[in-house]
Every structure is written in structure tokens, then in C-alpha cells.
């Protein structure tokens, strides 16, 4: 079975019977004829025989990867952020912000390329910008640079502001399980004011796999 989590920038693809790890490919490089058996994410309905929505895939993946009954799992994508909260093993809250939390991951990646920055070398700032989305936050960077801050300092404050916004969106928990490519960004993960448990980029794929296995068990 071919499983796919189609992200806005990157897609995660798993051939279940190959014995290989999932592959990460730029979504724009996926050919128009590519068709997964089961998928989630951007245009999943068009690119697969069957699709499930991203919140469902995130929740199913969280159920597999997290042992606790009470947890908050936040997925920070290129274009949006979404969270799911479990209490006593049941889903009690969820959110998907494609507007006010828009373009976070995309903007953070773009800034590193534009300013030639390595996020692993940037110190976590003590203060950050108060921002709600990548697009609106850009002007803070330009203003800070004009005021004499280094580009790295300005971008660090931007990333911290984005992380704090995502934290509040997820309900300000004491511990936050994190999903998505930003798990690998130490500046981002270090900017949260709570305990962060990064789960990596394949949480939604795990959710697809869990869905598949659950259906096979029923047969």
C-alpha cells in the first residue's frame, strides 16, 4: 500500500511493504499522475484512492506514538497549525488554524534561505515579537533590522513569537507534543515556554498506517 501525507511544501510517502523508511519529497516535484492508496493533506482527495482529513490522521498518529491518556499534540505545518487534545484517552478539543496561524513553517524556512541563516546556530532570544502569522510578522523583522538589530536577532524574535502564538493556540499546556518539520528547528522548539516532546515529521503517516491496520483487523 502506498501511503502519503501531502504537505503544502513537503510530502511524506511510505510504501508499506517495501521495508524502507518513509521518503520526504518536495510536493512540487510530485508528478500529476502520482496516486496514493490512502492519503491525507493538501489535495489528498485528488491524489489518492481514499483520503482522511488531517486532524483525524494527526489524532490517530498521536494515539500510536504517545502513551499518556492526557496530552496535547500540535502539528506545525508549512501553511497552517493544528492541534488535538486528549483527556482520559478521548478527544476533547481540536483546532485548525489556516488563517491567523498561516504560513508559519513556510515563512521560517524562507527567512533562513533569504538571510542565509542556520537556526542551530542562533541563540534563543529572551523576548520576541508579538505576532500571529508569518505574513503579518514580516514587517516586525524589517522594522527591527532598520532599528539596528542584526538579521539573525530579528529573525530569532520572529521565530520565538511564532512559537509562542502556536503554544497559545494549543491551549498553553505544560507539555506539548510537536509534529512536523519544525521539530528539527532548535530555535523554534526552544522558544516554547513549556516542555516540548518532538515527534518528528511522520506523525500523520503513522495515523494513516494506524487507520489501515485498524481496517485490516476488522476484516
Amino acid at each position, binding site marked *: 500500500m502506498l501511503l502519503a501525507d501531502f504537505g503544502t511544501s513537503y510530502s511524506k510517502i511510505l510504501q508499506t511493504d517495501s521495508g524502507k523508511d518513509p521518503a520526504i519529497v518536495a510536493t512540487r516535484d510530485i508528478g500529476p499522475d502520482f496516486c496514493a492508496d490512502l492519503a491525507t493533506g493538501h489535495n489528498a482527495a485528488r491524489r489518492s484512492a481514499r483520503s*482522511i*482529513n*488531517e*486532524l*483525524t490522521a494527526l*489524532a490517530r498518529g498521536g494515539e500510536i506514538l504517545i502513551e499518556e491518556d492526557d496530552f496535547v499534540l500540535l502539528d506545525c505545518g508549512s501553511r*497552517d497549525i*493544528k492541534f488535538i487534545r486528549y483527556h482520559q484517552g*478521548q*478527544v*476533547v*478539543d*481540536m*483546532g*485548525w*488554524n*489556516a*488563517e491567523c496561524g498561516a504560513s508559519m513553517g513556510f515563512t521560517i524556512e524562507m527567512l533562513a534561505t533569504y538571510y542565509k541563516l542556520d537556526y542551530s546556530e542562533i541563540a534563543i532570544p529572551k523576548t520576541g515579537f508579538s505576532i500571529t502569522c508569518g505574513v503579518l510578522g514580516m514587517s516586525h523583522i524589517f522594522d527591527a533590522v532598520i532599528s539596528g538589530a542584526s538579521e539573525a536577532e530579528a529573525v530569532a524574535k520572529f521565530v520565538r513569537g511564532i512559537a509562542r502564538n502556536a503554544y497559545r493556540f494549543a491551549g498553553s499546556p505544560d507539555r506539548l507534543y510537536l509534529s512536523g518539520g519544525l521539530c528539527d528547528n532548535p530555535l523554534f522548539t526552544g522558544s516554547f515556554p513549556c516542555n516540548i516532546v518532538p515527534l518528528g515529521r511522520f506523525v500523520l503517516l503513522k495515523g494513516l498506517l494506524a487507520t489501515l491496520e485498524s481496517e485490516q483487523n476488522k476484516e
Partner: protein
Amino acid sequence: MKEKVGIVGIPPLEIIKELHRKKVEIIDLDEPQVQASLELTAAHLPRVYCAILRTVILNAMHIELDRIYIDVGPGKCDCALHVSIILKDMLSIPIIPTRNQDMEGLGFPLCRTRMPLLDKMLTITKNVRSINRDEGKKYPSCPPTAGFWGVPPRDFNLLTLFPDTTHIYGWTRCMENKTPSDLSLESQINPGVPTVFFAQSFCAKTALARHLADRHPRGLYLDCDVAAGSSARAKIEAFFELSGTPVLRKEKS
């Protein structure tokens, strides 16, 4: 020629009865009645404002009416009170504010019957113009598997994501009961079924919706502006799927 009278919110039953006696055409201005962009209302209302009241203004800009009854009491909202002033300044017809405090309930069988939620909502909103009690025999009650709490949404499409056995709570229930200011009825919830607590974005009812959702053991708070986007739809889908509530997918009726 038949008079055309617009209504906003739910004017008192006596007024609706009077309009029936005079055989006027009643037009519900809360619902989209014209094919025109909501952006046209920007001359009269902030863009960031309740989509229902923006719809009222849009309708009033395009439909030739003889007068408008606008409920501005506890059965509607303060925003409607302010919009009534705007309507007075916009139009040369009488704008008549009302304060519906009717407390004699006519029942809410539609809210508890088995029927596609979209059809239930259409019937309830259509009945705003009627003076009759909904027939309990025609709409027998069914055991609920899900709940929809809130006002009729600006975008009815999101109602297609609910099972037919969804019971309606909140202001829509008050609406069918013809008691729009009955806060006690509006605040009733059913903790036994997963419930979506819906409010229009920028509406004062968002506070009550979120508060009740927090108190409900399986409540999802949801607010939408003009149209229900893909994230709002995905939230409802995932909520029911993860709650183990089966929803039979079918085309919009």
C-alpha cells in the same frame, strides 16, 4: 400590490400574527436573499462584523421593502440594535425596533426529530414567518447521536456533515419554540452526545458557545464567518469520526 415587510431576528409573535392578518409578504432578512457581494456592505458596516447582520444590510440594500421589523432585545443582540440605527439612516422606510420577550413556548419537535440537519434548519428558519405550532406528530422525536448547539449558520453547507439523528440546541431551539430570549432554554446542553457549539464569528454568542463547549464532556467549539472553510469542515468531520459517531455521507438535499 402586496406589501413587502422585512424581519430581522424574531419579532414578537403578535407582530407576525398582525403581518399575517394584513396578508403581507414577509422576508427574512437574516438569510441570503440576493446574489450580491457582502463587500457592498462595507459602506455601512465594518468588514469585520457579524456575517448575519452584514447579510441583513445587503438584503436591505437590494430589496424594495415597505418596512422592517428588527428585533433588538435580549432575543437578538446589541449589534442588531446598532444596525437598526444604520438601517434608519440608510433607508427611507419605517424601521421598527422590537423587543421579543415571548415566553410561551410552542415546542421544538423539529430540533429532536430524525431528518438531515440541513433540512431541519431550513424548516425552522422558514417557520420564523409562520404563526403555527410545529406538529409533534409529524416530527417524532428520535434518540440523539450528536448535537448542534447555536444559531443557524450563515453557511448552511456545514450542516451536511452531521448525522440525521443530530438534535438541535441553543438559540435555534429557542427559535423553533418562538422564545428567542429564553436564555435558560438556550443554555441547555446534552452531555450524553458529542456536540458542536457553533457561533458566527464576531457574534457575542461566541462567549456562551465556548463556555458551554468547555463544560461539555465532548464539546467542540466552532466559529465561522461567511463561509465554512476546509479547516472548519475538517474539524467537524474529525470530531465525529474520533468520537465514534457515524455520519452517513450524502449529497446536499
